[in-house]
């Protein structure tokens, strides 16, 4: 092979102009690299000649934007070379690369020393970027292999080169800049006790860095740096870290959202339902089952699309419409009633207005904790009554969490059943409604949970008395710890219920389907479908809980990351064995946009909760970095007051409403401006489309005229007869060269 390469090398050496003299070519384009390509093509027998793309600006920009490691354009001095060289085989590219290398060397030797150095620098930077990209790809691809396995089995699902959801969690962990310390003291010898306390987040857990209460109010001083001692104010640090974390999450999400909004708006305008289904076949499958399923999916979506188009003209009768209307009202009321019912149930269970019953609550739990003996538990000593009492106590501590998590598992099934009965015309609306209801349910349950916490922990719940005096302080040192512990419990219980649900719904059902033939053949029980939007909603829900807990339990993001990793591997194991691929996977920008929107909504609700807590409650005086202060915002305001007059002036004025109103008006104006810009761009696009059509039509007319003209002129003895075909083509092309678009790119039309 090397000899062959050498042969071609010798033939290709030399300037581009030497090609055109030595070989017969068409006279049109005279770009250097294109000549080499043509030569390369003609040498290889049987290679299909490549369509040239018009080397327009937008094309080359697109190329460079898409490229994450393009190797072609490195040595080419012209941009058009990189645009055209990519449609070739390895062999052709090798030849071109050698040509270009030599050309480059020739050019370089003719350059001044300064330019030589610059060109070498450019090449070096290019190489380094490529190396960096490679390293990033090899080492930072999280879960690459696992996702590949899943995708091979179930088809393409997730863009795992930019894992959005995982970055959401990872950035949580990285942002946690509080100095982290290892678990504190308070180690109970009794294992059962410890486990219980791990679950409930009390006792020894309270003394860890996990919970708010642990953080000291003293200030760290460092005597290392320079002349003055720098003081690290813990309280201020805690507050600022918390706020900046939330602010950063919000900003990142808004940035992402705006990017997606643009893309989804563009997408909506140019939706091509048929082509996008037919041309985007998933090449990732590696077994017959999935392949079959994919083609069935394609059939279904095509049929649906055809039906939709047909039904656009077919309206339902009035009577059926009314019937459906009432049916839907009925089903919607059922759903809402169910939601409100569950919510009311656990509000009633948990929230009480009297401090007395809360004292009872803590008493029960106190009993639970204290009853577990220091010595080992004897099995004979266990009484039935005892167990009942203990169960009741367990229930009363965990009831809120269990109801919330349980509802999030049961309701999706319920909503799907309801959706089947509602007689929607299109699959997409049915799926959309189900997802919408599921999201509302999750949002509702978490919000009510937060509301309960707010009530229980707040001053109206008898805060000052319940937590800080007397014997009942054993359980929670302060109300912040109570909130943190409750959220922590919710997370734990949610995880346990999730595992149980996974076991039952996927593992058990998969087992039944494979082993018990009766169910599969007679009843038609199948493995459950892998429902991606449902999983995503689940993630949104979990993220919401983590957000609300973060301010009170700063190490929660670490827990979140651990939980996500465990859940991923559990789901992966289940997905490879027990589920069938989803019927419809909607991956466009619009759906991603909606999902990010859901995240944003949940974040805003968390903001409301945290904001209310920060501004309305008094920090407890027994624990936490804010003990001794009247309000949470005190450290910050203290800092502001101590700083210069200018800063004080700014802060004072920013807080006023007039500034807020001015900002609001400005934002409104900006929105109006961008909206009109977008509308005018739509008009321009339509005009350009018209123009393309007109030009094509115009060219056809010219061609017809030309043909007629040449026919009529053949009769006369004119000098035009002696014009060669190439000459005539050149004339026509000169007229074409002023026209853009597809017309110029299709020489075969002539």
């Amino acid at each position, binding site marked *: 092979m090397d000899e062959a390469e050498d042969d071609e090398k010798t033939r290709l050496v030399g300037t581009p102009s030497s090609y055109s003299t030595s070989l017969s070519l068409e006279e049109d384009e005279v770009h250097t690299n294109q000549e080499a390509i043509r030569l390369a093509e003609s040498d290889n027998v*049987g290679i299909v000649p490549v369509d040239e793309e018009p080397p327009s600006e937008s094309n080359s920009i*697109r190329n460079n934007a898409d490229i994450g490691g393009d190797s072609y354009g490195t040595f080419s001095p012209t941009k058009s070379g990189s645009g055209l060289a990519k*449609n070739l085989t390895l062999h052709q590219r090798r030849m071109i690369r050698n040509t270009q290398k030599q050309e480059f060397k020739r050019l370089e030797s003719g350059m001044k020393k300064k330019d030589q150095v610059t060109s070498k620098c450019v090449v070096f930077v290019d190489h380094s970027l490529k190396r960096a990209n490679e390293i990033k790809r090899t080492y930072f691809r999280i879960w690459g292999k696992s996702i590949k396995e899943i995708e091979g089995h179930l088809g393409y699902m997730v863009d795992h080169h930019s894992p959005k959801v995982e970055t959401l969690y990872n950035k949580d962990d990285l942002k946690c800049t509080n100095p982290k310390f290892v678990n504190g003291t308070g180690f109970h010898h009794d294992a059962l006790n410890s486990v219980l306390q791990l679950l409930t987040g009390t006792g020894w857990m309270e003394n860890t860095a996990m919970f708010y209460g642990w953080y000291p109010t003293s200030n760290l001083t460092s005597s290392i740096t320079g002349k003055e001692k720098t003081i690290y104010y813990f309280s201020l640090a805690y507050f600022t870290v918390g706020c900046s974390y939330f602010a950063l999450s919000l900003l990142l999400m808004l940035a992402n959202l705006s990017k997606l909004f643009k893309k989804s708006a563009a997408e909506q305008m140019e939706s091509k339902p*048929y082509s*996008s289904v037919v041309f985007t076949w998933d090449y*990732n499958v590696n077994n017959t089952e*999935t392949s079959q399923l994919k*083609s069935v999916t394609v059939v279904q979506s*095509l049929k649906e699309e055809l039906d939709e188009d047909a039904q656009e003209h077919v309206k339902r009768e009035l009577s059926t419409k009314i019937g459906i209307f009432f049916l839907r009202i009925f089903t919607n009321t059922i759903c809402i009633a169910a939601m409100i019912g569950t919510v009311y149930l656990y509000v009633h269970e948990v929230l009480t207005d009297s401090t007395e019953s809360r004292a009872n609550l803590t008493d029960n739990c106190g009993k639970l904790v204290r009853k577990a003996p220091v010595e080992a538990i004897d099995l004979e000593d266990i009484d039935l009554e005892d167990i009942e009492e203990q169960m009741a106590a367990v229930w009363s501590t965990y009831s809120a969490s269990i109801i919330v998590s349980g509802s999030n598992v049961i309701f999706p099934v319920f909503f799907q059943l309801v959706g089947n009965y509602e007689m929607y015309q299109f699959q997409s609306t049915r799926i959309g409604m189900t997802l919408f209801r599921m999201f509302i349910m999750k949002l509702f349950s978490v919000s009510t949970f937060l509301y309960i916490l707010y009530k229980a922990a707040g001053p109206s719940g008898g805060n000052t008395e319940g937590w800080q005096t007397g014997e009942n302080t054993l359980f929670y040192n302060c109300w912040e710890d109570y909130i943190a512990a409750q959220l922590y419990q919710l997370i734990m219980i949610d995880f346990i219920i999730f595992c149980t649900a996974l076991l039952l719904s996927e593992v058990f059902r998969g087992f039944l389907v494979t082993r018990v033939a009766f169910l599969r053949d007679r009843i038609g029980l199948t493995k459950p479908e892998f429902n991606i939007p449902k999983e995503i909603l689940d993630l949104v829900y979990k993220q919401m809980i983590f957000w609300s807990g973060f301010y009170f339990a700063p190490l929660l993001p670490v827990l979140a990351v651990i939980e996500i990793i465990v859940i991923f591997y559990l789901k992966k194991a289940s997905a490879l064995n027990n589920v069938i691929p989803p019927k419809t996977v909607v991956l466009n920008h619009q759906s991603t946009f909606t999902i990010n929107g859901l995240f944003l909504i949940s974040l805003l609700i968390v903001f409301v909760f945290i904001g209310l807590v920060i501004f309305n409650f008094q920090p407890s005086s027994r624990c936490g970095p804010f003990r001794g202060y009247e309000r949470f915002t005190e450290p910050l305001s203290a800092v502001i007051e101590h700083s210069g007059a200018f800063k004080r002036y700014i802060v004072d004025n920013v807080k006023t409403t007039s500034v807020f109103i001015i900002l609001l008006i400005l934002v409104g104006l900006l929105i109006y401006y961008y909206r009109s810009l977008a509308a005018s761009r739509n008009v321009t696009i339509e005009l350009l489309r018209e123009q393309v059509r007109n030009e094509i039509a115009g060219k056809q007319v010219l061609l017809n005229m030309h043909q007629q003209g040449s026919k009529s002129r053949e009769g006369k003895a004119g000098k035009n007869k002696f014009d060669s075909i190439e000459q005539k083509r050149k004339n026509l092309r000169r007229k074409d060269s002023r026209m853009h678009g597809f017309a110029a790119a299709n020489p075969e039309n002539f």
Partner: protein
Amino acid sequence: MGNSESALISEKQLEIYQLETFFTRKEILHIYQSFENLNPDKVREAFMAGNYQVKMDYQEVIQLAELKYSPFKDRICRVFSEDQSGDMTFSDYLDMLSVMSMQAPKDLKAAYAFKIYDFNDDDEIDRTDLDELVNRVTGFRMKTEDVDGIVDEILKECDMDENGTLTAAEFEDILHKSPEFSANFNIEV
């Protein structure tokens, strides 16, 4: 495992491959491993003798899991093989996987997709091509009238100059707007 493979492909060759494809050294070796698994003796023998141009027959190539169950396996092999017969050398194999990897730019993929879907190799996708395409993608499950209807719709959506065929530029324009295409047009070994 790594040592034995890298002994079979010279460093210089690896460098060249790295420049020409979108892969890193590790990935190229991994791909070589899968290539070898198609017919271990033949490949190993040839490579040890320095013959990098050993061809795998079409029948052997389609043993690859990702290709075996694809409705387009014959087109893929044909388009990427040097002599259009479906027999692939290691270069062709690398080329194929490089184009169908995550790192390849959208335009490159679109260009090759056009070649794959052009069943009669006449540089444009006309009605017969689209017919065949729809049939393959739906696993020959749809009736001819439905298929014709769908082909009509596709031409309506994509054919800008309304001449009844899709040229490469129109095809690539359509695919450029679809975000799923570059995600789905992937084969990973």
